[in-house]
């Protein structure tokens, strides 16, 4: 103990004993008053709160927000297992949930929840555990930019919406790289570098095609892009861009012809090898969130977003309906591709990315410029 003089001792006693009691007393009384007041006015508060911002609350919780992401992840996992099972001439999850296996996904999540999280030695646990949570939430942020209807955009930042989407979705690949590095294991290390190779070669063609669509629509705002496609979807004039973006979606979502970072055959599970328990559950969910974000962008850019005949009377409802229909068809098609094609090698995928997709994206951009200046479209 270092030497303390008498005066400091006295001052210490005063600060430690007298002041807190006086402060704490005032603080507790305020708490009590606030609680009583709230309790008394609670019904009025909630009603007023709900009335004021019911729509954003609905958006955040239900449609482009939390429920949409979770429900899609759950249904997609179940659907993919049943769908692939049929391609493999078998039945798929059968016993949970009366022969349809619907509860299988909940059973899996519960099992993962119960499982012990095995942490390898000599790693920084906080960094290691943060990655799976980040990898499943960051792509979900990109969803809020997708327009579901004229005024149904959660984060309406006008002409900044497409670049912001690319920024957030571009951030998503960084996290597996950190996760691979954090797990201190040879397989994850190589898996992490494969993620890096793959995403760089896939991002550039995507951004170029996005720019081409923006030029044709006249603005970077996703809402205006969708309105520009009222008469004709952009997939028709920009077919080259359409094909490249479709391949881009499969690459970004790490679906089968390109799920090279998580190649179970060689790398055990790529960057996800060292995760177990609920952390592994998050990485499993992350795969579907990224897939959802990119395919929704693909629909807004090329397949005319929420345009569609007004069949429900209420225009918003039918717009949302059309967007979800296109989304389901696209998801089924991409899952079907998983039944048919094996996995490409990394160098073949890079060759595809750099030698074919990037030049074609530039050509597509040139074509669009020619169309735009020539006034054809």
């Amino acid at each position, binding site marked *: 103990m270092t030497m303390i003089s008498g005066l400091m001792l006295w001052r210490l006693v005063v600060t430690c004993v007298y002041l807190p009691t006086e402060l704490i007393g005032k603080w507790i009384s305020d708490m009590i008053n606030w609680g009583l007041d709230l309790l008394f006015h609670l019904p009025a508060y909630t009603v007023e709160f709900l009335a004021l911002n019911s729509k954003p609350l609905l958006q955040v919780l239900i449609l482009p927000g939390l429920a949409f992401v979770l429900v899609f992840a759950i249904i997609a996992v179940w659907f993919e297992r049943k769908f692939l099972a049929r391609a493999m*001439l078998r039945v798929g999850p059968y016993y949970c949930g009366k022969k349809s296996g619907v509860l299988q996904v909940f059973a899996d999540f519960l099992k993962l929840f119960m499982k012990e999280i095995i942490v390898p030695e000599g790693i920084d646990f906080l960094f290691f555990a943060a990655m799976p949570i980040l990898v499943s939430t960051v792509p979900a942020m990109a969803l809020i930019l997708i327009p579901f209807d004229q005024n149904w955009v959660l984060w309406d930042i006008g002409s900044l919406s497409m670049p912001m989407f690319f920024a957030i979705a571009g951030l998503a690949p960084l996290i597996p790289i950190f996760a691979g590095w954090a797990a201190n294991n040879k397989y994850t290390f190589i898996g992490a570098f494969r993620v890096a190779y793959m995403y760089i070669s896939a991002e550039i063609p995507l951004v170029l095609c996005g720019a081409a669509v923006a030029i044709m629509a006249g603005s970077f705002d996703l809402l205006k892009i969708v309105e520009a496609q009222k008469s004709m979807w952009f997939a028709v004039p920009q077919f080259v861009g359409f094909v490249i973006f479709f391949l881009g979606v499969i690459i970004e979502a790490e679906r089968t012809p390109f799920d090279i970072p998580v190649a179970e055959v060689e790398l055990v599970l790529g960057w996800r090898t060292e995760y177990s328990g609920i952390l592994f559950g998050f990485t499993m969910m992350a795969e579907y969130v990224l897939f959802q974000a990119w395919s929704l962008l693909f629909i807004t850019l090329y397949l005319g977003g929420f345009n569609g005949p007004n069949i429900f009377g209420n225009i918003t409802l039918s717009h949302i309906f059309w967007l979800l229909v296109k989304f389901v068809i696209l998801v089924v098609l991409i899952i079907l591709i998983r039944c048919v094609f094996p996995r490409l090698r990394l160098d073949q995928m890079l060759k595809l990315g750099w030698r074919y997709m990037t030049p074609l994206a530039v050509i597509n951009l040139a074509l669009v410029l020619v169309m735009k200046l020539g006034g054809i479209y």
Partner: protein
Amino acid sequence: MSFLKKLFKPFMVVAPYVLRNGQTIGFPTERPIFSERFRGRHRLYLDRCVSCNTCVRLCPDKSIELVEVEGREGKFPQIDYQTCSLCGYCVEFCPKSALEFTDLVEYSVTDRSELIYSPERLAEVPDIKEVLPMLKRRTERYLTETEIKSRTVEEL
């Protein structure tokens, strides 16, 4: 353009497979019909066996042993299913054909010593309903034009 053909042709061939229903059997509730030569668990006829020791000498895995049975004189084979590989020598070359195969395969146990079947246990074979209580149907597999179908033969 052959590259594009190689992309779309497998797609068109494999994609319709998704519309078929599965060709697997739901095990505990369904059970296939086995052929009559099927090699399942043995059945011992105590009165036929003359304890001539042929099966003990012939068994490649040395899993048969002659054991006393109270109430009868002479020794009778006791089969240890931990090492028996169901090769069928004891059934084929028994001079009195006292051993034969049944079509019971579900004899997994939790405690290994239960796998050593005494002659009495070999003599009586439990009915399939006791072994598999959840069994509902016996199915038979047959080939159609493009897939293997299963047809319910016997509703239990």
